[in-house]
């Protein structure tokens, strides 16, 4: 199976062959991998020693030799799908609660035009009031909460149609 892996800004092709070989960017690599625990590895390659930890799955964050990086993995089936029929991202942005908390205020109404950075709602969590801002310009098509609503992480707050 072939995978396209995004590490930070860099794209790497990884192929895991049925015979157990690993190809990175079409080059066979002699990688010695020792799992330490679930989501933790010692990896040795060309004498270089690396330590890798899985920090979180969604989003995929890895710890590599003391540094945190974002990663994304696309397998060949998804790659094929993307090249044949994948649609471009629609012009709809959903603002979701980044963590559980209390909606202290909603500063927009349906129909309002917003710019990137316009405050949409205030979420109180961990003793702080967090101003949640518009990720893109557009028109508010839905306001799903009101002041006083307790929300779980991931709860839909506001929908913006990109303008």
């Amino acid at each position: 199976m072939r995978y396209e892996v995004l590490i930070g800004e860099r794209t790497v092709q990884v192929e895991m062959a049925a015979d157990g070989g690993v190809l990175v960017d079409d080059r066979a690599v002699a990688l010695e991998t020792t799992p330490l625990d679930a989501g933790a590895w010692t990896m040795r390659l060309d004498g270089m020693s690396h330590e890798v930890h899985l920090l979180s799955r969604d989003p995929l964050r890895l710890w590599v030799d003391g540094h945190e990086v974002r990663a994304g993995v696309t397998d060949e089936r998804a790659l094929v799908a993307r090249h044949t029929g994948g649609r471009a991202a629609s012009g709809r942005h959903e603002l979701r609660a980044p963590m559980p908390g209390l909606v202290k205020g909603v500063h927009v109404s349906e129909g309002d035009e917003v710019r990137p950075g316009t405050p949409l709602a205030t979420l109180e969590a961990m003793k702080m009031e967090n101003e949640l801002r518009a990720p893109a310009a557009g028109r508010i098509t839905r306001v799903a909460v009101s002041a006083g609503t307790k929300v779980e992480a991931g709860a839909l707050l506001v929908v913006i149609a990109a303008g």
Partner: protein
Amino acid sequence: MSSVPPLFRSVLIANRGEIAVRVMRTCRDLGIRTVAVFSDADVGAPHVRLADEAYPIGPAAASESYLRADRIIEVAKRTGCDAIHPGYGFLSESADFAESVAAADLVFIGPPAEVQRALGEKTSARRIAREAGVPIAEGTMDPVADEQAAAEVAARVGYPILLKPAGGGGGKGMRVVRGPDELASAWRGATGEATSAFGAPALLVERYLEGARHVEVQLIADQHGAVVALGERDCSIQRRHQKLIEETPGPSVDAQLRGRLVSAATAIAVAAGYVNAGTAEFLVTPDGGFVFLEVNTRLQVEHPVTELVTGLDLVALQLRVAAGERLPFSQREIRSQGAAIECRITAEDAYAEFLPSAGRLGMVRLPAGPGIRVDTGIESGLVVPTEYDPLLAKIVAWGPTRDVAISRLRRALAETVIAGIPTVVPFHQHVLADPDFRAGRYDTSYVARQWHGQTVDLEGTALTAAAVAAVLTQRGRERHAAPADSSAWTQAARADVLR
């Protein structure tokens, strides 16, 4: 030593997290029994296990547990404690709590209620400072009634202005307003946060000083009138007025400025009749002038940097002066050696505007080695609750010079693994590598100007290792999500990769 009776028999620590652990450690050093209290959210927390005794005081919400003075005092009485240490936050700056503790015939490890009242309320603190001859920022002496009144003050002193809660410290609820168009949103946020943090929406309006550094002086005073200053800390690396990095000595503080800051802090402490540990905070302007901000009437989060350069244990000193002992040194005997820097490791996403994070921690590995001190309240597998302050741990480095301390701290941060929830570790790594920070060139606007979520680029075999780990993770996820889809060759290939 064994013939000397301990200062107290048992101390109740009315707090949680890293500070409860830190206070208990000194109590143990001094042969004092420790009693922990905990909310339902903290049953498995390290501070509960570390204590000799531990008792539940209510549900997760702080207002029903760690802020319940009545329950805490009841536990202290029932368990035969002779003193209560409040830590920081929660009830530490509540004069009413200090009074109730004293009324229950227990010793409050902190300043007495009347000192808390005089300095805890900002208007009164500003009066004390002004009468002691210490400069204060231009603005209102009393809280303003509404947004309109704030606008009038702003027109008088000029923008930018700072809105700050009259009722408490710690930077909570403070807002900088750069022009009239920002006032409405800032007023809304500041009054809301002031109400939830301090129970009162009252706000003061002050002129905001651009390019200023936040420098504070550590004080310790006994019940016999002695006040000693233990040097300064620069705490200018802040976001939303919450400190992230603190260091001593302040890179911009020369001997002359240090002398003036120490004199000002001491004058305020003497004027207020201060007792126990406290911190006088100042804003230092680029021309070397300064204004008084506030006194924090408690142990400060960043106290370890002072401990590392002075060799003192501030909690031990708090216990000694609370027990009535005299300070064992005079101002002239205080020696400071080397430099110390602290990074606050908070459960906040450095890549999402420091939004708080919470949830179950995966693997936690904290650093050690030469010159490194770690104060922590977390462990692998612990759930970080949403109800409390997001501080997880403090990583502190000491070195004979500031450069050595920075090198050690960078090494320590690179050893640190906290899986499961986002933290500010990448932010700290970026700052400690930044030439401006390394040269000591920073002020309170540093984070807003310098941090844009910069990431590190992996090279060579590290990039390969990361890519393969990402694929292994993805395959593990597929196996869990759809076991039927996990063909024999996938298993075989995975096993081979893991060889």
